[in-house]
């Protein structure tokens, strides 16, 4: 099929408090493109809105959330216009998601086999026997040793790394087109994380999956992603191909972030730190949300929020410094 697999156009998701007094613009005018088989990283800190963005894609938001504007086009269809029943057919089957804590993602009372087979039985109405057979294949696909015995075990009998693979197996069980991974390796040890990321990459190739990583860890982006979108206070401040962004970041936040991370083999005496802290999403600063911390702040930034500017062929930056004529 032509065209991108998933496209967000000016999506805005706001949270409204119960009495309608406070509005938190968790996601504000975000536009993204994900191609088939591509890997997109959405980077942000606490309050950046990245998790709300992920949940918006699957419409898994709490009742206090409102989609204020925009479209989520999946294979050309706007997900925001779908009914609950239609969304249920999409979740798990065409778009899947894995979360950070595997212990919380698995039900301690059911066997591994039951849990991996569940989406298959729900979406494809398969019998228990055939679903279990598929479950075994899936366990092999995620490289679980001795799957025949594992399939009857319970989550607490497995290690963290294995549990996260089971979660992965559940996610790909119905051959989705897109897999959203929200901080999938934060709770894993380093060497287990390496194994797991390699597994995800292999699964991506063998199943023709598009991956979206939601993370605060720029290392994952550097290793796994070809596109990246940087979020700050609900807005997307920079996006583009990973190499381009790492080599020439246009937005001061991205620049400062890349500078501040300690690098192996780089014996600098001091890290270049960013002043201040990420803003409270319910009360962001006026104008550009990053202005109180920006080393290159101008007067204009304090009052006017910049729109997105195109800085290179595929790179955008939401900064007055990127406006044409000011570069």
């Amino acid at each position, binding site marked *: 099929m032509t065209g991108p697999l998933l496209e967000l*156009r*000016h999506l*805005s998701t706001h949270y409204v408090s*119960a*009495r309608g007094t406070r509005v938190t613009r968790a996601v504000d*005018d975000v536009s993204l493109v994900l191609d088939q088989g591509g890997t997109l990283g959405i980077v942000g800190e606490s309050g950046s809105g990245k998790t709300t963005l992920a949940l918006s894609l699957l419409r898994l*938001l709490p*009742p*206090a*959330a*409102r*989609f*204020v*504007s*925009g*479209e989520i086009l999946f294979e050309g269809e706007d997900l*925001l*216009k779908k009914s609950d029943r239609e969304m249920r057919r999409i979740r798990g089957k065409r778009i899947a998601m894995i979360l950070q804590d595997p212990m919380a993602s698995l039900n301690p009372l059911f066997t591994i086999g039951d849990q991996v087979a569940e989406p298959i039985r729900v979406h494809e109405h398969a019998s228990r026997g055939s679903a279990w057979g598929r479950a075994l294949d899936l366990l092999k696909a995620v490289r679980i040793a001795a799957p025949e015995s594992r399939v009857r075990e319970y989550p607490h009998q497995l290690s963290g790394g294995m549990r996260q693979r089971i979660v992965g197996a559940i996610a790909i069980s119905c051959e989705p087109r897109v897999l959203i991974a929200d901080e999938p390796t934060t709770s894993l040890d380093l060497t287990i994380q390496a194994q797991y990321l390699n597994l995800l990459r292999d699964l991506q190739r063998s199943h023709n999956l598009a991956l979206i990583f939601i993370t605060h860890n720029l290392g994952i982006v550097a290793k796994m992603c070809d596109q990246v979108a940087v979020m700050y206070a609900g807005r997307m401040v920079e996006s583009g191909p990973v190499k381009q962004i790492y080599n020439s970041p246009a937005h001061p936040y991205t620049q400062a972030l890349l500078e501040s991370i300690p690098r192996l083999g780089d014996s600098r005496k001091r890290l270049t730190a960013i002043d201040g802290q990420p803003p409270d999403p319910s009360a962001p600063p006026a104008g550009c949300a990053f202005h109180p911390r920006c080393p290159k702040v101008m007067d204009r930034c304090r009052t006017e929020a910049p729109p997105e500017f195109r800085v290179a062929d595929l790179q955008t930056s939401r900064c007055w410094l990127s406006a044409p004529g000011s570069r």
Partner: protein
Amino acid sequence: MNGSAAHSRPVAATLSFAGRLAAFRTEGFPHIPVLIILTVVLVAIFANVIAPHNPEVGVLGDRFRPPAWQVGGTLDHLLGTDHLGRDVLSRLIFGARVSIIVGFTAVIFAGLLGTTLGIISGYLGRWVDQVIMRITDAWLALPVLVFAIFLAAIVGPSVSNIIIILAAVFWTRYARIIRGEVLCIRERDFVRLAVVAGCSKWTIMRRHILPNVVNTAIVLGTLQLGVVIIAEATLSFLGVGVPPPQPAWGLMLADGKKGMMAGYWWLTVLPGSCIMLMVLSANLLGDWLRVKLDPQLRQL
């Protein structure tokens, strides 16, 4: 500015009914329950001033007068009189005093004892914990009212005895629940850091554990208030509570029981309603407090 074609019509337009109901429960300050409780407290404090008659003395010739709005009632006795000619309104007012005093004091004493034992048991652990918990278990196994009656029969009925008895019976709930909280708090980093700083066990219990369980104790107290008031009323009803002629709502129920068949409804319905309102208000307040205080605890 958003120039896309999509109009700003929210997809999830209004909060569903369930959503609004949930919001009401979590946000609304319980004005009416608090008003009721405050009224009862004020009535109890100013009983001497408010009550139109002496609650303990009645005119026998004036027995079984119905409330003022019924045939045979007078404005002199707004809510009627009982079997001894005593003014029901005045007895209700003075009865509030008993309920409030007994209720609040018993809850506070039970709370102090139970919370202290819960903290000691939870923090020190090992054999201290075992001993205290086994005592608590044994205590809890005793049927509350039977035990209370038993104690009342031994020490004799009086307001102060009733308070002591109720405190002695109800402290166990505190101990159990507070101990559970303490087990969690004990593992938290700031307690570990206090150990690293060299604080003694007792300092830690006082400075770090206690302030962090106070909220739970308060919520438990408000929820217990209703239970204690009913317990007091029951004891009075059974005749082992506040001794007559001092008025107590439970006692009024017992006395009024005899008149129910004869149609003297006000002798039972009125004190019963007072008990119900008081307990309901205490429960609603405790419920609201629990929801209000809990999420903060979780955040912190």
